[in-house]
């Protein structure tokens, strides 16, 4: 974990209220693993005492990229970040996705900007697989070209039917699972809203496979000190409140005690 001043190399819109921020921050970028995050101090956010956590979309060659959506005060203020600005970054933080499954076919499931860490993951997995991406409309479907460039198969669902199958992302996922495609053994990796994470956990239980889920919890310090972002986790029969920022944000589905 490092605390560095990152230089803004590029900051551009990606449509639909999404933006891509590319930073030069060699120390953090070199250490980053898929599923880890950075904790950013938003410049010129008056009265703010908390940093904001962002999944890592890409990392390498001294650069680190995040993909975000303007959803609150912090991400709105981020729009003002310009090329050559400096931003304070803590990272890489958290545990990241497990990369030890080499036999199973990786099945990635993303909701909205939850797709960002899965692009990074796909770039580091030895085996190619499938990615299911869901969103409200076509504008919420991101990174399709990234996965295709990596040789991955992409299945899309939108709630309004403006791209891919109409419905939730679990629809194409369930169709694929029911067709027996996962018979040779699969492993899930997912990132998105809690409802989707829970849905993937149910499928993992049904198909008796592992699912690595990246949880999105409201964070404070980001390093495990404040205990704001705890999640009920069951290990060895004991349920305890575990820090999402430190022991997570990725947990194996069977460990998670959903509220």
């Amino acid at each position, binding site marked *: *974990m490092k605390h560095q001043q990152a230089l803004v190399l590029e900051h551009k819109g990606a449509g639909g209220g999404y933006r891509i921020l590319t930073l030069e921050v060699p120390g953090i970028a070199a250490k980053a693993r898929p599923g880890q995050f950075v904790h950013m101090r938003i410049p010129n956010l008056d009265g*703010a005492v908390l940093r904001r956590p962002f999944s890592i979309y890409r990392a390498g060659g001294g650069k680190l990229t995040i993909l975000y959506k303007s959803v609150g005060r912090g991400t709105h203020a981020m729009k003002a970040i310009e090329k050559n600005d400096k931003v304070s970054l803590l990272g890489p933080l958290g545990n990241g996705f497990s990369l030890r499954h080499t036999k199973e076919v990786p099945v990635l499931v993303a909701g909205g900007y939850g797709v960002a860490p899965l692009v990074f993951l796909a770039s580091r997995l030895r085996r190619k697989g499938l990615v299911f991406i869901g969103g409200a409309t076509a504008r919420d479907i991101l990174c399709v070209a990234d996965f295709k460039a990596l040789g991955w198969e992409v299945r899309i669902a939108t709630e309004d039917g403006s791209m891919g199958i109409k419905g939730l992302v679990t629809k194409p996922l369930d169709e694929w699972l029911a067709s027996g495609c996962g018979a040779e053994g699969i492993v899930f990796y997912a990132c998105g809203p809690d409802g989707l994470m829970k849905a993937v956990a149910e499928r993992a239980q049904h198909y008796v496979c592992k699912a690595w889920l990246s949880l999105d919890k*409201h964070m404070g*310090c980001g*390093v495990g000190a*404040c*205990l*704001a972002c705890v999640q009920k986790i069951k290990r060895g029969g004991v349920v305890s409140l575990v820090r999402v920022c430190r022991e997570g944000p990725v947990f194996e589905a069977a460990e998670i005690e959903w509220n």
Partner: protein
Amino acid sequence: MAKQNSKPDMSVRIGKIRMKNPVMVASGTFGYGPEYADLVDLSSLGAIVVKGISLKPWQGNPTPRMVEVPGGLVNAIGLQNPGAGKFISEYMPFLRKYDVPVIVNIWGRTVEEYAEVATQFEGVKGISGLELNISCPNIKEGGIAFGTDPKVMRRVVSAVRRRTSLPLIPKLSPNVSNITLFARVAEDCGADAISLINSLPAMVIDVKTRRPVLANVVGGLTGPAIHPVAIKLVWEASRAVKIPVIGMGGITSPNEALEFIIAGATAVAVGTANFTDPSTSLNVIKGIEKYLAANGFASARDLIGKLRS
């Protein structure tokens, strides 16, 4: 012209605790040490006050536990902690590797429990003092209830004093009408110092859902917003007692720390700002040193209570 003394003496003492500088990190904002060890050289700090410890492990409150507000945050963590035994076995071996006094913040749900948890640290190598949390707004069972009634506070501080030989620092609640009364109770009961302020009771409502934002409904406000409140209370408390006062509340820069010292604090603690910028405490140390040198103070101790009328 006299040769300029390049380095002011930054050391201060809180009872038997010798600190190399007056800057601590506040309880609940620095975990138990390892969380920030990659980012801050722990040995550079005046002292580390660890997150509140109880006799037995404690789960704390449901989530959401924290919300940002302009100039601060409101938290209701609820004192989640591993318990005294596990804290000593899991964290003390790590903390002993650093040249920094460790002050353990302790709390209980009854007077007896406060006394009992205090005894757990007797003779434990590497522990320099106890901060007595009688002012946490976030648990029903204890905390603030012990710190807002002088009679109850007297019972708690006396009970703990009888059971520990470690320097004892009651942490005062700002939620009282006359802080000097509580400062004097601490001194009368044999406390070695007092620390203040704890968070201010607070509440945030989500107007979209019309529900409280925090699962605990209410919490405690910390951060820059509370700094002037803390200065006023430290100023009042320090004039009421002879024991050292540790000032905290909203320090983000050397300036705010200096205000505490000028108001009468012997030492200060950086809290919420650790989340914003983990290097705050180190910047505050450097800034105090610079100020002392620039203003002709040979020692940090010379600045304590130097408020001009």
